[in-house]
């Protein structure tokens, strides 16, 4: 009973934290655009979390180069569970054009449990919002 009240409130108040795993910055710019007044995500309770400890959803962009791997793992340890992970952009999905490069590790979902994938290079802000909403619906449906 309390679990479903908390889950409902988590779905109504997801604070997002932006993680870049060696991205080219385009997806980061689109994530920034999502948080501008034009798209008004505060309607859905979405706020940008300044600290990883305040995060409920990680917006992961970037192809996961080798330097990012230990840092992303550390971030995942630091975030208070439950936390959603949304992979943004084709690099986060399957490393895009950078697959097989000497500087790359594995795609994001080998290191983090991804709940939603948002394809695009970069995805439009509307697509990113749809990704977050899909992840929230999955959260409500699963629990």
């Amino acid at each position, binding site marked *: 009973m*309390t679990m479903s*009240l*908390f889950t409902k*409130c*988590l779905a*109504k*108040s997801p604070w997002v934290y932006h993680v870049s795993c060696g991205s080219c910055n385009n997806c980061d710019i689109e994530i920034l655009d999502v948080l501008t*007044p034009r798209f*008004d995500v*505060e*309607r859905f*309770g979405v706020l*940008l*979390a*300044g*600290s990883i*400890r*305040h995060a*409920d959803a990680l917006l992961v962009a970037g192809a996961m180069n080798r330097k990012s791997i230990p840092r992303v793992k550390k971030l995942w340890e*630091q975030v*208070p*569970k*439950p936390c959603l992970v949304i992979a943004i952009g084709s690099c986060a999905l399957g490393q895009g054009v950078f697959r097989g490069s000497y500087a790359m590790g594995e795609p994001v979902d080998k290191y983090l449990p991804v709940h939603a994938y948002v394809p695009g290079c970069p995805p439009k802000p509307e697509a990113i919002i749809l990704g977050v909403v899909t992840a929230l619906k999955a959260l409500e449906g699963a629990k």
Partner: protein
Amino acid sequence: MTIETLLFDLFVLLVFPGLLFTAAMGMLASWIDRKLTARVQYRVGPPLFQPLYDFIKLLGKETIVPKGASKTIFLGAPLIGLSAVTLFSAMVGAAMIWPEYGFTGDLIVALYLLAMPSLAIIAGGAASRNPIASVGASREMKMMLGYELPILLAVCVVLLQTGGELRLGKIIHAQAVHQLTWPWVLATLLALFAMLLGMQAKLGLVPFDAAEAETEIMGGILVEYSGAPLAIFRLTKMMLLWAVPLFASALFLGGSFTSWKGALWALGGYVVFLVLITLIRNTNPRLRIQHAVGALWKLAGLCALAGILVAFLWR
């Protein structure tokens, strides 16, 4: 001290006008602030119960205490802040409804209680074992040095106007029945201006929110807080958003809930303060800590001093 008075005191402290009532009104005030911010930015803004959703969500999240952090202070500081603001709002609310409920000197107790949430957040930030939190804590300390001065000078104006009354109920009554002579109005306006800037800093809002600058230092003081302690700190901030402007409208405008006229001044003054605080928050950049303290001492402090001069010369 009978069992009835004890139960009544507990009711005043915990239900009305204490913890539960102030928490509810604080969430409403926080929503008004966010909604007004959204409208100013041509947005729609969050739904009415958004602060409540935030609070419940944070209660259900994992609480992580950083390794090497002082666990007692880290987890205890939010509770100290919450109890101080609960007591403060209970005292001020009770003085506005039942003026004989207080005691002589409860104004001074209220002012001390008002300092405690900031001290609690400083302690919590300092106990977080994080350099970012230390920076935030040191900035909050400097900010306290900054805003305590204009707030106390503004309260001195009230003391001069009421002839040295130290009892909240009597001060409110004296302010309510006072004639609107021009020295009184001038002194009150000067004191209100100083109090407005002091409140902005006390509530940790732009342009005086260097301590918790999200874009600069990742949440500042609260960077390591998660889960229930974070929920309690945020609730404390929301309760201050209700209690402090109400305190100002009681003290300077004579607002009280013993009469219709008093309630009009109390709630009308509160709404005006809240709107002003939100609009100032939305139209100003953040001041650097040295400029913030400078503005609080020079601009607000000198205004309050001028108010004291006017109130003293035409007492």
